[in-house]
């Protein structure tokens, strides 16, 4: 034990002497752990929120009854069911806008709500009568109050002009939800007597009357967990993306750790020999070495976990916003510290450190005591190493290609991506080395020649950092290209898709008819385009059937990926459908395929006449003629409309409609408002991507700094003879700086093709697998210039400290390199 202790202490003394090395190790491990555990925390938080969201309605396995078609059902059905012995509770859900920001509003009836469920416990301790007696109350989690910029007791105005009841903050409130009494919700949403769901407290008794005997087929029993499963399935790809990013960052961090450990072991070979020579057993040495790794892992990992928590808290708002916008999945805003997450963070740090240190550990333990202290024959080793790398790179590229060719899932998509990145990472030093050799052979001036030769010699030491940079740059090029490409495509697509100028929804079918009649008298209204929708499941996948009017407007503008010449005619006839790209891909449908739609009265077969892009929709969509829809789903309410109006008339028309119909119009918005909301949804998603992207870049910059710092000591011995031969320190420093710049720039240049490959993989493989839609592949050369500039900046920043250190080296220190006692 004593032996292990003293060996341990001796080993640790190294780090005091080499703070740079320690810094690299610490930062690498801490950052790797931080990024990894940060992403894990985000994912865990999201999953926990899904469960919490699900328990809004369930709790102890409660189920939901939802409208078979249409969005709402009259609440008489609730009373009917209660009087028939069904323990159901009504709810009305809808999105409301507050200053253009969407919030989810839910109206519940607290007395009948399942007690085990989340809302059941919510009003607990509170005052029921305050909740449902006028004006009522809005119960919301603190983060929603924060988003609203409101405090307890405030009354917030909706964009419709109506005011919410006073707010009450509750930490137990379901994430992202504004909870109100059902009566309040009906009034706020202009849906008196309507509900969107019934929550079933417990499965009905066997002797209770059947659902159909009470309400006909107006309601459908949603199996327990189906919604959660949907939510999880829909969001899975998002989380996988996040995890992939986290993993990438973790690996970049491990590169640093590996480099730092490698150097530390190399530098301590003499120490290890001496220790062994004075009688330290291999076992004690092993214990001490492992102890050292574990200690470092715990200290750095601890910092990393803390930083990860902070990182996750910082990213959470955007993650939550994009999950909400994309999938309607609500994530609580307050991150909670979970001990298992903490432990797993430390665990991953330990595992990562052990993996990164494995090589060095093995070498130190197998070291013969009496080996001649000959310098490491790096030149031969490097050649073998390079050749092996080149082969491995080829192998990785091959695997990537195979995964692309034969794979058909998000996982193989990521495998292809990983193969590409891995291969490139392996190949980078080979390519750089070849380039430097080329430079060397073309230069005759001694200092220039030395510059090339010396850069090549330094390559192994810098390779890991440069590889990290390559990955970061490539990711930046790739993700940047994808995001920008999407932004442009999406903006264009929105323009086309939102052909009508005004969109509104009537409170009910009779109101809709009255509004339609009124609009017919308005000269500025060029066309009234009603739509209706219902939900079905196609191969278990939630799909929306959308009834539209095959008006000229759509024929001219509706964006299509592929369409048969008679697509619109077939739609109008009622036997043709347009399907979304997602639906086409998932069900493997193409033009002319038949699609069976389950209606209340049996299967209805339609022919696919066109495929249209439907960016960002996690569900499938099939568009059919509105009259055909009403025929097959008579219950689907025809309450949504688009209006063609001269743009300058739009505001006046909206005002006139609101004045005329008031609450009979549930929602009304112009094109611009809808575009704004849609665009913001994607900005949130990309904000997360960009943040992780930037962090990866920062990590690689740190890797570079760390590598340069660790190389600093060895560097002196390499540079001293040049200095002794009469090259000033200033000149040498300039060359050092230039070298780092050149290597980084070369890496950045190599990152461009890799980034393009990555971008292509993302838009054509990963995105298709993850979301079901493909983006056009576009190239943005100005982004590359940005990356290059960024690369040079990174290099400059990373090399400043080590180079300053070099410049500050006194001649005496340099001269001592040669001193005999050394």
């Amino acid at each position, binding site marked *: 034990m004593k032996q292990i202790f003293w060996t341990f202490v001796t080993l640790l003394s190294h780090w005091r002497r080499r703070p740079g090395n320690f810094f690299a190790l610490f930062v690498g491990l801490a950052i790797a752990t931080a990024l990894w555990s940060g992403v894990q925390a985000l994912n865990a938080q999201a999953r926990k929120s899904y469960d919490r969201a699900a328990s809004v309605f369930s709790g102890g396995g409660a189920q939901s009854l939802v409208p078979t078609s249409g969005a709402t059902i009259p609440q008489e059905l609730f009373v009917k069911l209660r009087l028939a012995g069904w323990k159901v509770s009504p709810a009305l859900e809808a999105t409301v806008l507050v200053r253009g920001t969407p919030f989810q509003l839910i109206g519940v009836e607290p007395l009948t709500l399942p007690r085990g469920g989340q809302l059941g416990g919510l009003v607990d301790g509170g005052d029921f009568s305050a909740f449902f007696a006028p004006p009522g109350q809005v119960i919301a989690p603190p983060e929603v109050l924060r988003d609203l910029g409101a405090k307890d007791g405030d009354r917030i105005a909706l964009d419709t002009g109506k005011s919410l009841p006073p707010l009450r903050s509750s930490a137990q409130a379901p994430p992202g939800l504004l909870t109100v009494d059902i009566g309040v919700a009906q009034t706020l949403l202009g849906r008196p007597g309507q509900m969107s769901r019934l929550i079933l407290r417990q499965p009905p008794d066997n002797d209770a009357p059947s659902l159909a005997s009470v309400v006909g087929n107006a309601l459908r029993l949603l199996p327990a967990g189906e919604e959660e499963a949907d939510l999880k399935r829909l969001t899975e790809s998002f989380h996988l993306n996040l995890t992939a990013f986290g993993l990438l960052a973790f690996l970049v961090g491990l590169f640093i750790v590996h480099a730092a450990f490698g150097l530390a072991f190399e530098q301590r070979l003499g120490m290890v020999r001496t220790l062994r020579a004075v009688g330290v057993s291999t076992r004690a040495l092993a214990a001490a070495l492992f102890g050292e790794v574990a200690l470092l892992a715990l200290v750095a990992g601890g910092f990393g976990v803390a930083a990860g928590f902070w990182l996750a808290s910082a990213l959470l708002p955007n993650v939550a916003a994009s999950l909400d916008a994309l999938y309607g999945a609500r994530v609580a805003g307050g991150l909670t510290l979970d001990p298992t997450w903490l432990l797993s963070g430390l665990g991953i740090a330990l595992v990562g450190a052990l993996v990164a240190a494995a090589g060095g550990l093995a070498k130190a333990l197998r070291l013969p005591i009496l080996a001649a202290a000959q*310098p*490491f*024959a*790096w*030149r031969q080793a490097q050649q073998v190493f390079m050749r092996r790398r080149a082969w491995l790179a080829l192998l990785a590229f091959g695997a990537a290609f195979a995964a692309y060719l034969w794979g058909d899932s998000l996982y193989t998509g990521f495998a292809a991506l990983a193969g590409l990145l891995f291969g490139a990472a392996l190949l980078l030093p080979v390519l750089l080395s070849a380039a430097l050799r080329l430079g060397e052979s073309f230069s005759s*001036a*001694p*200092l220039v*020649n*030395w510059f090339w*030769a*010396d850069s*090549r*010699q330094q390559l192994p030491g810098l390779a890991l950092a440069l590889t990290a940079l390559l990955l970061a740059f490539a990711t930046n090029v790739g993700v940047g290209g994808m995001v920008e490409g999407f932004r442009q495509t999406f903006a264009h697509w929105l323009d086309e898709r939102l052909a009508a100028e005004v969109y509104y929804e009537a409170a009910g079918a009779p109101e809709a008819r009255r509004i339609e009649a009124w609009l017919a008298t308005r000269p500025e209204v060029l066309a009234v385009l009603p739509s209706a929708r219902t939900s079905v499941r196609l191969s278990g996948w939630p799909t929306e059937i959308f009834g539209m009017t095959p008006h000229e407007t759509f024929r001219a503008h509706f964006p299509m990926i592929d369409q048969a010449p008679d697509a619109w005619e077939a739609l109008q006839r009622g036997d043709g459908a347009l399907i979304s790209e997602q639906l086409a891909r998932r069900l493997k449908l193409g033009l002319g395929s038949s699609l069976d739609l389950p209606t209340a009265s049996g299967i209805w077969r339609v022919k696919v006449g066109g495929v249209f892009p439907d960016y960002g929709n996690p569900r499938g969509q099939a568009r059919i003629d509105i009259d055909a829809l009403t025929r097959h789903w008579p219950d689907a309410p025809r309450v949504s409309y688009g209006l063609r109006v001269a743009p300058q008339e739009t505001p006046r028309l909206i005002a006139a409609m609101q004045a005329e119909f008031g609450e009979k119009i549930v929602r009304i918005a112009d094109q611009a408002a809808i575009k704004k909301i849609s665009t913001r949804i994607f900005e949130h998603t990309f904000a997360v991507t960009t943040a992780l992207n930037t962090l990866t870049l920062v990590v690689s910059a740190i890797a570079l700094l760390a590598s340069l710092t660790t190389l600093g000591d060895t560097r002196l*011995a*390499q540079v*001293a*003879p*040049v*200095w*002794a*031969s*009469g*090259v*000033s*320190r*200033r*000149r040498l420093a300039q060359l050092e700086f230039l070298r780092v710049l050149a290597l980084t720039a070369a890496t950045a240049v190599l990152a461009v093709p890799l980034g393009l490959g990555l971008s292509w993989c993302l838009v054509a493989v990963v995105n298709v697998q993850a979301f079901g839609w493909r983006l056009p592949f576009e190239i943005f050369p100005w982004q590359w210039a940005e990356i290059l500039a960024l690369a040079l900046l990174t290099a400059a920043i990373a090399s400043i400290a080590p180079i300053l250190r070099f410049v500050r080296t*006194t*001649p*005496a220190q*340099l*001269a001592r*390199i*040669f*001193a*005999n*006692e*050394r």
Partner: protein
Amino acid sequence: MTDAATRDDARKPAQVEAPLLRVSRLNKSYPTPQGPVAVLKGVDLTLARGESVALMGESGSGKSTLLHLVGGLDQADDGEIVIDGVDVTWLSDTGRAALRRETLAVVFQQFNLIPSLNLQANVAFQARLAGRFDPAWTDELIHRLKLQDLLERYPEQLSGGQQQRAAIGRALAVRPRLLLADEPTGNLDEATADDFMALALDVVAATGCAFLMVTHSERLAARLQRQVRLSAGQVRLSAGVINQP
């Protein structure tokens, strides 16, 4: 007396001419945690052109320090170093770099060669740097030093003796007026050291430069024209025997 006079006379022309190196009252101290430690306390030393001198002394007596100061590797605290009539004591960093490049050359006990260059490039390096690369002379040096079969090798692929021979070659390729060597044989066994010395003295003679060498070996020191000893921070001229080469 006669002997001494003869020796004095023999040197007279050199002394009449300005000496190649004149070090006067040189002081150098190093900062240590316990305060500055004076290593050189008023060192005086003169080297005539073409003269070879062995600098001896106990380990830690300041031999390397003196050599570093003379070689423009470090800065003295006080005193004067004149090389070939030029006062180099207070040269700037760049000035000292030029001095190292063009006027003198240094061979150390180790780390003389640039690890990223092969032997040929190493030998030519300083000469090229100084713009004085002479292929014929370099070739001659390489042959005299018996390095012709090792040109493509890199430093870590050479034995200690080979490395030191290459170091001498590199140093003399620039045709310096003064060659400084700090225990060049310190890492070599006796036989290799003797070999090295023979070749080194040969090429030094061929170059015609002055040679100041730090060594612990009386035997090697005896092969130089003069021996001086450094102790207590000062040079005491050694009356040591002069062996004819």
